[in-house]
């Protein structure tokens, strides 16, 4: 059983699994958002937690002080995801019935005194928050390792947990992409959200039905890409950044068969059986064409298939910026799949200019 879980949690299986779960969540959000589901899920999860904690290797990783916030984060995110969908489902039902969302009911729109209503609420959260922090600080000591030693790197050397998603991306992308361009695009994308999303509905209340597209894309990035990768990077990457299942011992000597090949090598050496051309551009021509096709041909095709309505409603500039961001986001899972399926290292490999894609 543990073997199976170990195996399944390998990104090759777990990432598609996470995507499927995510699609199911969107499709059946009303069931997901029901209180009954929450109760059942709670029982199941508690059982699973008990089962997982029984394993010494898993216990070791989960109780590492620096990993505690991630556990807290996942508990909170699970709860709040359920909460949003619970509220969204409720509101959506009301809207279908032609009623206003709960937040819009007259009793909720009623103005109340800030003192003491809000001030006290704030005071309570502050007290609760302080208490929580104090208890946390008492129970878990902040980690402190050996004194800094620039000549000897610990194994594995991990970034702070909130950047582990980025570090995980580094497995699939070069630093300039994973470390600069993609994070940059994330920030730009977030900044652009209010200007991309022209849907006037759903302002100030929970709903899914009215904002399907926006929520789907956002949650895909937030839950499936960002949080999932952090999860993998924190709990399942061991020495030498090799994958370890949740119940696996972090053996320093574990080696994974990895021999990645560039697209140009596939094309010239494996495909045509000739030498690589000396000219760099010629050598990488296939990769360049593929990349160009991804954007130049992929965009119109996608537009034709699914995007016409958006194009119309958003206007050209908005639409294309939006699609560029989406394409960039989607390039990550694409690259991941290419790596897993074909051991593809780079689509374009120009180490001469440090330009690897």
């Amino acid at each position, binding site marked *: 059983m543990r073997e199976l879980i170990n195996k399944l949690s390998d990104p090759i299986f777990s990432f598609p699994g996470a995507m499927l779960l995510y699609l199911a969540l969107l499709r059946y959000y009303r069931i997901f958002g029901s209180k009954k589901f929450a109760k059942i899920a709670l029982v199941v999860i508690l059982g699973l937690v008990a089962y997982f904690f029984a394993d010494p290797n898993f216990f070791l990783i989960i109780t590492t002080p620096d990993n505690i916030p991630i556990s807290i984060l996942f508990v909170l995110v699970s709860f709040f995801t359920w909460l949003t969908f619970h509220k969204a489902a409720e509101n959506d039902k009301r809207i279908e019935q032609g009623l206003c969302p709960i937040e819009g009911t007259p009793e909720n729109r009623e103005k109340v005194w800030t003192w003491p209503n809000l001030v006290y609420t704030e005071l309570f959260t502050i007290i609760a928050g302080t208490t929580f922090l104090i208890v946390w600080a008492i129970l878990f000591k902040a980690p402190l390792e050996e004194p800094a030693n620039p000549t000897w790197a610990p194994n594995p050397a991990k970034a702070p947990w909130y950047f582990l998603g980025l570090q995980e991306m580094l497995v699939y992308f070069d630093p300039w992409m994973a470390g600069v361009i993609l994070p940059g695009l994330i920030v730009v994308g977030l900044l652009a959200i209010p200007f991309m999303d022209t849907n006037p509905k759903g302002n100030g209340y929970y709903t899914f039905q009215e904002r399907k597209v926006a929520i789907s894309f956002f949650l895909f990035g937030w839950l499936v890409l960002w949080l999932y990768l952090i999860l993998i990077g924190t709990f399942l990457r061991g020495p030498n950044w090799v994958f370890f299942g949740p119940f696996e011992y972090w*053996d320093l*000597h*574990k*080696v*994974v*068969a*990895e*021999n990645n*090949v560039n697209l140009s*090598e596939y094309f*010239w*050496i*494996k495909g045509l*059986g*000739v*030498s*690589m051309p000396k000219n760099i551009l010629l050598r990488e021509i296939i990769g360049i064409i593929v990349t160009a096709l991804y954007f130049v041909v992929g965009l119109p095709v996608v537009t034709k298939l699914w995007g016409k309505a958006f194009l119309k409603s958003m206007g050209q500039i908005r639409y294309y910026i939006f699609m560029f961001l989406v394409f960039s986001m989607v390039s990550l899972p694409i690259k991941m799949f290419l790596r897993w399926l074909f051991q593809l290292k780079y689509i374009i490999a120009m180490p001469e200019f440090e330009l690897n894609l």
Partner: protein
Amino acid sequence: MKLEPGMAYNTKVLNKVFAFLSAIFLISVFWMLLDDYIRPWKVYQVEATKIKQERLAKVIEETEQSLDASEIKALEDEILVAEQESQKHNETIKKIEEEMHKLEGVIHAWSIKKGEANAQVSALTFKAEMSMEHKEHNADKLMQQLKDWKVKFASASDTLKKYELEQKEKKKSIVELNSKVIDLRKELDDKVGKLELLKDAKAAISFDGVSVLRNAPLLDYLDPTLRIEQVVMKNYYDDRYFQQTARVDRCTTCHQMIAKPGFEDRENPYKTHPNLELMVGENSKHPVKEFGCTNCHGGEGHRVHDFQSIAHTPQNSKQAAEWREKYNWHEPHKVPAPMFRLQHTEAACLKCHQGVERIPMADKLNEGRHLLEENGCYSCHKIEGWEHLKKPGPSLYRLAGKVDKEFFKNWVWNPKQFNPKTKMPSFFNQSNNSTPEFKAKNIAEVNALTDFIYSLSEEYTPNEKFTVGNAETGKELVSKIGCLGCHQIDGLDENYNVAQNKRGPYLKGLGSKVSAHWMKSWLKNPTHYDPTTIMPSFRLTDSEASDITAFLMDSKQERFQNLKFAPLDGDIRDELLVESFAAFDTLAHAREKVEAMSQVERTLELGRITLGKYGCYSCHSIKGFEDSPQIGPELTNIGSKPIEQFGWGHQHLAHERDVWIRAHLENPRRWDEGTTKPFKDLSKMPYFDLTKNEIESMVLALLGQVSDYVPLEGMKRLSADEKLAEKGSRVVREKNCFGCHKIDGEGGEILANYQDDLNAGPPFLVQQGTRTKARWLYDFLDNVVPIRSFVEIRMPSFHLTNEERNLVVSYFQHKAEEISFDDERELYTWNPGERQAAIKLFKNLECATCHSHGITSDTPMGPDLRLAGNRLKATWIKRWIGNPISILPHTTMPSFWDGGESPEPEILGGDSEKQMWALTKYVLEMTKNPSVAAELRK
């Protein structure tokens, strides 16, 4: 102008003010940029670069001239021809290149395959081993897989290797086709390569567009060519509030050529260091990268702002004036440690080179330290590391048995009057105590002191009686047996007095000082009077001692003898006593106390106080005062003592450390001038009558007494062996071996008297450690047995402890880098025919002419060979026989094997080496069995 409603000011005016202020703002920003950018060191660096370019240009020109232009032309032509020729192969080469290109693809493909196999093998190895370990069911399957992949990997690497070899072959064949061109090119390269390199070097430092860009304001962060250079010293620190921070020197920012030979003639800062072999140079003992600059020179090495900030210190007022004009220099203020004056740089050696007698190449410093020791500065002033030294003055334990009170009083009052060259400094009649009042007080003090010291003195009776002696013979003896190694003697020809002043006392007026009995007793056995004296015994016969005594007692000081020291004035004595007691008591009570004492008690009490006041016990052993504290302030850290803590009195002197020390040594009492100090507070430091050069050396040595913290890693660390040798060296110096012996080129003042025949003088000790056996030297020092019966000078018998003798041996062993004993066992067995050959050689070379001991009855002119084997090392005997002149140029021993050629080609096949060894063996045999000499008599 009318304003719009709601406006306080006219918009137009506002805009104008805004524009004006912005303009000022912009200008100030620009000014700030320039202020930040323009630095004096950049100017120096530009100039230095120009000088470097000039020099490179010169070298390039010289190199070009040295090249034969026609030869190069010919070579170039040849290359052209060869190139044309090899063009014939162009098609072949092209074909091979195409093949190679194809091959590259194949190799690439196989290396991918190999990589795959390798990845699989490593992953499977882990998996298989794990499953084996855990005895999993799929272990066998995995092992099988691993095996398969290993086979695949092996075959892939094999194939890959095959193709790679093929590629190498092909490469080689192309090279071969072009071989002629390549060879010729290489030849040309060898000829002009250096020139090209030089040209590249010049281009690298030329000023062009790129370098302007690199040094442009704001852009100079990229990679400026003008930049601050620095050395961070790991082992030398600056003190920052008790924290030691690594010292940083940026001197090379301006002194660019300091480590580059070839700029010796330039002006500073473009000058090469004058002693690159020792300092700064990368292969020197003190490379700049490790030791920096300020470590020796002092100063604020980390500052680069301008000439002033470094705390440059001029050598003299002339240079100061020059700097004032040139650099706007002024005396550095508020700087913890300004630079040493150039002439004082040696002082800095001391902080790292501690625990050594002499620091190599620091002559002036050594001289200064020697003077500090000789004048006994360490005895009144504490200097760390000097505590164990002997007291510089003679012991006064048995003073009463040597001189009388009248002599003593007059001597103390003015030693120079009796003996102008005495070491004893003057306490009285100085600039601060010459008034009649003070003089009278001093006289009372001297009287009391004399009584007190004599009251402490033991009885002493000389153990010899002088009856009669021949002063003429005595004079001759004195100049021959070696007294002059340490003493200068009145009555001899002044040219004979070659010993360093103050090593042993100047022997003058002894007739007016001691009794003849005492003198004779002292000469025969110095330790009888003073067991601690370094004066050795010359093993004088009774008549010799009498003769010398007669000679020495002839020297009289009539004037001094007739001096009558003023008697003790009881009133002044009481006054002084009261004054002294009153320091801890009321005046009335002090008077009562004095009155309660008897006259003798009063005198002795004042004597005791005076002894303590002047610290006589610091230099002289006086009973009961052995452990009294030193009287002067400590000098250990005088080089770091804050300027403000020196007392400057009313003297108008530059407030600098070296100025103070110099002034102080010139006249220690000067600080009292113009003050109204009471008698008891007058400065007591005596006057030493030093020469200007002596003072300079001592100033330097004292400046080196700094408190800088140097960690162990930064110090010169002595090995255990070196430490022993240093201790030995101390003994050698203390006993003044250098007075007679020239030890590896150092010392031997007395030899000046033997210029006509150096062989008659004390022997040169050249590499003594390789020469004599350790055991022999050890015994010899205890019991001197004359070796050269033919010389008159004598090796005296020093009274050395076993430890001291061991140390002396270690010293010589270490100096000669000799650490082990020779194994001479095989030298005691003869090879067939060797002994006969040796005897023949001995006879043919007429060794017995000089080394006649036991062979003929002639007066021996060389050392007794029957003792040589015990004394000398066999290896050294052989070396000595082979070429004595090379070891001792003035020796009378002939060099028979000069140039390695044998004088006796018949014997032992004319093999010089064998002959020398045969003779050596023979000498050893003679030592072992002195009777063999008899067989040579025939």
